[in-house]
């Protein structure tokens, strides 16, 4: 079972992501703040990181920057969820933080699950 770390501050969306991802066969660890996600990523190794960009304390990009610098998840596939696409330099993020994909809110949970599954399959094949 693939382990996924989900960081999302919206209570309703976090619960739904936990439900759909568990339903699709993922082992979900849910964090509600950026700093708790950073803390969790230091302690455990995950197969996928799914981080919301707008979170109190630390943003998704800040959490991922910290994770890439020092944690067991330096090379873990990472995805970002955001409602502020135009404010992010996506090309730069792909290069510097090796982000595999960005989900633009409001996104389809079905598409999100399919994308993440596809990614885990690719990783397993490699």
């Amino acid at each position, binding site marked *: 079972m693939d382990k996924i770390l989900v960081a999302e501050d919206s209570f309703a969306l976090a619960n739904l992501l936990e439900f*759909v991802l568990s*339903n699709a066969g993922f082992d979900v660890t849910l964090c*509600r703040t950026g700093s708790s996600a950073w803390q969790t990523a230091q302690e455990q190794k995950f197969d996928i990181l799914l981080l919301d960009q707008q979170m109190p304390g630390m943003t998704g990009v800040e959490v991922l920057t910290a994770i890439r610098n020092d944690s067991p998840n330096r090379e873990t596939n990472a995805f970002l969820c955001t*409602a502020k696409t135009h404010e992010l330099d996506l090309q730069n993020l792909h290069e510097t933080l090796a982000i595999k994909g960005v989900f633009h809110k409001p*996104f389809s949970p079905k598409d999100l699950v399919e994308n993440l599954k596809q990614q885990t399959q690719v990783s397993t094949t490699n």
Partner: protein
Amino acid sequence: MNAPVNARMNASKALISEFYLILLITCLVVLSVGILLFGPSNSTFLDALVVIVILAGVSLGFCRMTAISKRVESIRLVEFQLSNLGATQDAPLQPIVAPSQVGSGWNRLVKTLEERKLDESIDRRLQQNSNGQQGEKFARALRSLNEGIAISDASFKLSYANTAFLNLLGKEEDLSEEDFTGRSILKILNENDYSNWEEEQNDLSNGNKPVSTSLWTGTSVHDGVHQITRLPLEGRVGEPAGFIWTVRDVTQQSIAQESHEQFLASATHELRTPLTNIRAYTESLLTIEDVTPGQQKEFYNVIHSEAGRLGRLLNELLDIQQLEAGSMTIQTNQFEIHRMIQEVQEHLGPLVEEKGLSFTCRIAPDLTTIEADKERVTSCLINLLGNAVKYTPSGGEVRLLAERTDEWIEIVVVDTGIGIHQDELESIFDRFYRCKDERVIDIEGNGLGLAFSLEVARLHGGDLVVESQIDKGSRFTLRLPTPNEE
């Protein structure tokens, strides 16, 4: 046909008639002389008649000839003055003594020209006088402008700079116009260490078209922004004679613009959050088969709740937009403060009970009615008390106090909640601002309530102030002006 042409034709006809009259008189005289010399001279009466006709004809002819010669003389005088116009520009035209149409026309012309000359002379003197005064006025106006204005030649060397220009771009104090004269404006701008000078200098250094650019004195708009405009002065085609430069401090406008952009970005984000949840839950209900009836009910509840949140957010946005546009008006009327507080209590009662908070209310006995917009003030109190309830942990206390001071009617909301950091006490009134405290992330809020409440207070001529201590609680005071005593 126009009047001058008619006049000319009438004059020609008169001259022709004159000619025929003289010719007729001449013929009559010649005929009479012929009869006198060669005709039958047996009648004394006839001879006398012929002599009379001859004398009358000669007299009439003489009179007409004299009149014609006078007219010709007047035309000659006019012709003489006209022919000497070029040589005697300053010499005044003289009227002529000639009782003819040409003479009287000429005299009217001379009079009109004299009058016009006098008018022009007065105008010129007034203009000269006013030019001097206006020059001084312009110089004073330029000196007192907040906008920096300078003039340079085509190679950017300055020939004039007003006081504001020296103040905005002069790095040293007490600079005079002379210190700037002859210096290159590009060099002066470069010396000002604008953070984006490298990117913008090309636009200002090249081309002849009007250019306007914003230069940052620091790393953010809050440090200062100067708007530099370069306008070409008219010269030969394609080559301006020089440039007019203006410098304006647009820091406040830039901050307002940035805030507006942030407001739009935040509003978009806030609207997307409930929309994302509604879409995600609806799609899951439609596509995932093994959702239990209990989960289904929970999902429907979330959708219902998020739709309500979306609606409230839109209403608040409309309120804020109305306030920003200045289109929101308050309708004040007198109402009982007890009744308003009762409504607020009814609204928040269930939440207070659910959280297990203690709620007390104390209204000063002398405060029975207030004059304000009841609907807006009620919304303010729901916001303030709603926040107090939301951010106070179970077992805490929320108090509402209302009293009259010398200047204000004060409605105070006090709680024993989590408190607000000192460095956030100003920002909490900004639209969409949410406290950075991680303890608030589970609490629903969009950061518009306090912004709205402050605007409503100010619209009444009052204020909304806050005092707070972390982990001890907050105290919000809504101040409304006391009604004028009659």
